[in-house]
């Protein structure tokens, strides 16, 4: 019996024109949102662990009202229940505050065995929230997992790094982040979509978690964006069509820039 909490994020669509709001935070109103693509892999891996044995998958998100869409998508994929932490005070929170809200919510779930995350979000993309949540819960974290095997109390994980492949073992409660190399995430089936409508979703506020509203949000962030500016558009370069001399022309350009 393995109970897995999968933390997911509702993010602005990466293929849309993403920008900032007046308060220098990510603009989440003007852009369509969705379940972060990288979090689908975490949901998939949690479902596979549970399907290989016994257990349940609880999907958890922290975000505005629209973030319920991310929970619903995970339920359609097959997660058993959802938790949506929503509170106006959370808006603009940095990774530290977000990790505090997540950690308190996970503690409230209580009888979990594993906590899964995607490898990073597709918007802010720091990739540190899994580690911060682990630090707050006093748990080990194994990030960037390529393969996860649960054997009783022991979790075995393969990590494919740049210079080496590591095998890591842990027992007891554990935080795991999974890469997009773990295997395709499933599409919700029609049956899954219908079943998701009956699955329970709890709605929690900061007060439910015992988190002080004064410790989160933009005003309590430990970092501050001073300014932002769009990258100047790249000026159109020279395009030539290969007429048997394309390679030579390419090197001529490289030489003019002193690369050769």
């Amino acid at each position, binding site marked *: 019996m393995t109970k897995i909490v999968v933390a997911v994020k509702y993010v602005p669509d*990466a293929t849309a024109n*993403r*920008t900032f709001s007046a308060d220098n935070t990510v603009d989440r109103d003007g852009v369509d949102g969705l379940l972060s693509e*990288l979090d689908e892999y975490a949901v998939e891996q949690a479902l596979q662990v549970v399907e290989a044995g016994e257990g349940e998958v609880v999907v958890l998100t922290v975000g505005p009202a629209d973030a319920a869409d991310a929970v619903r998508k995970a339920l359609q994929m097959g997660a058993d229940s959802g938790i949506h932490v929503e509170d106006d005070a959370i808006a603009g929170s940095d*990774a*530290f505050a977000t*990790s505090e809200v997540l950690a308190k919510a996970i503690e409230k779930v209580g009888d979990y065995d594993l906590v899964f995350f995607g490898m990073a979000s*597709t918007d802010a*993309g*720091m*990739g*540190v929230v899994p*580690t911060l949540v682990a*630090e707050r819960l006093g748990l*080990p*974290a*194994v*990030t960037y997992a390529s393969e996860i095997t649960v054997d009783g109390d022991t979790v075995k994980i393969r990590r*494919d*790094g*740049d210079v*080496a*492949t*590591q*095998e*890591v*073992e*842990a027992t*007891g409660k*554990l935080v795991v982040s999974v890469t*997009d190399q773990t295997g395709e995430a499933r599409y919700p089936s029609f049956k899954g979509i219908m079943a998701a409508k009956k699955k329970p979703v709890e709605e929690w506020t900061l007060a439910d978690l015992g988190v002080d509203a004064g410790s989160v949000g933009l005003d309590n*962030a*430990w*970092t*501050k*964006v*001073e*300014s*932002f*500016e769009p*990258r100047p558009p*790249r000026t*159109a*370069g020279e*395009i*030539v*069509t*290969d007429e048997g*001399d*394309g*390679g*030579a*022309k*390419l*090197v001529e*350009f*490289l*030489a003019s*820039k002193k*690369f050769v």
Partner: protein
Amino acid sequence: MTEVLVLIDAPDGKVTKPSLELLTIARRIGEPSAVVFGDADTAVLGEYGAEKIYQLSDAVYSEFLVAPKAEALAQLVADKSPAAVLVPSSTEGKEIAARVALKSQSGLITDAVDVTADGGSITTTQSVFAGNFTVAAQVTQGAPVIAVKPNSAAPEAVNAAGAVEAVSVDVSDAAKGAKITSTKVKEASGRPELTEAAIVVSGGRGTGGDFTEVEAFADSLGAAVGASRAAVDSGWYPHSFQVGQTGKVVSPQLYVANGISGAIQHRAGMQTSKTIVAVNKDEEAPIFELVDFGVVGDLKTVLPQATEEVKKRKG
């Protein structure tokens, strides 16, 4: 002058170039003190500006993932009250940084591409949203913990004391939760590391699965080889070479994209490169919107000719 702690990455004892870049950046803020886990070539750290070198040699740091290193670095932060902590913005570096920042109650900035100091005030520059925006940010609480990306500064040789001091820290049992049971080092390609390379030559769908021409051109320029997600998903090239949103984000002096259409996924990983060149059969390919120079043509004929031309010019 106050100390600046610099976490050094030294796989197999060899200090990486990004680590030396951090020492150069640290000197803008204060006196660099290198923090080294395990055995490493410490002489080079003094040659690049480290006044002090804290060496932590306990086996615990290599037996378990991340947490013991984070505990030790946080202990050093508590003992030395540094003006800032700089770490390489690698996967491990960012994890150590996150745990240290939380333990020290300090603000954290990751993926910085520049760090400036004006009096006591430290400002970082980051590139966000697939490189479409540049953000200036500051830490407002505690000693800033900053993870800095490779190629953010040119390492400057400057002789410093480089005094080695052995440090031992009692690591808690709680930090020994994720045990490394085996490590298989990948075979070295002989090419520069992708995120550190000055030149990256990459291939995509247009290679048709054969990277021979791409690799040969890369080798003529002394470049690293990269691949698009399409090429990696097709099993043509290993995932560790993938450039893009879900792979590596590179920012070399020169990026040469071959047979890569230039989808947003890929652009997120390379569009902050200084100079961009592309070879693609399709003149409508979006990659041509980004390039300083483009060749509409088949990489199978353009690249071999370019490789020969480079060799000729280099003599």
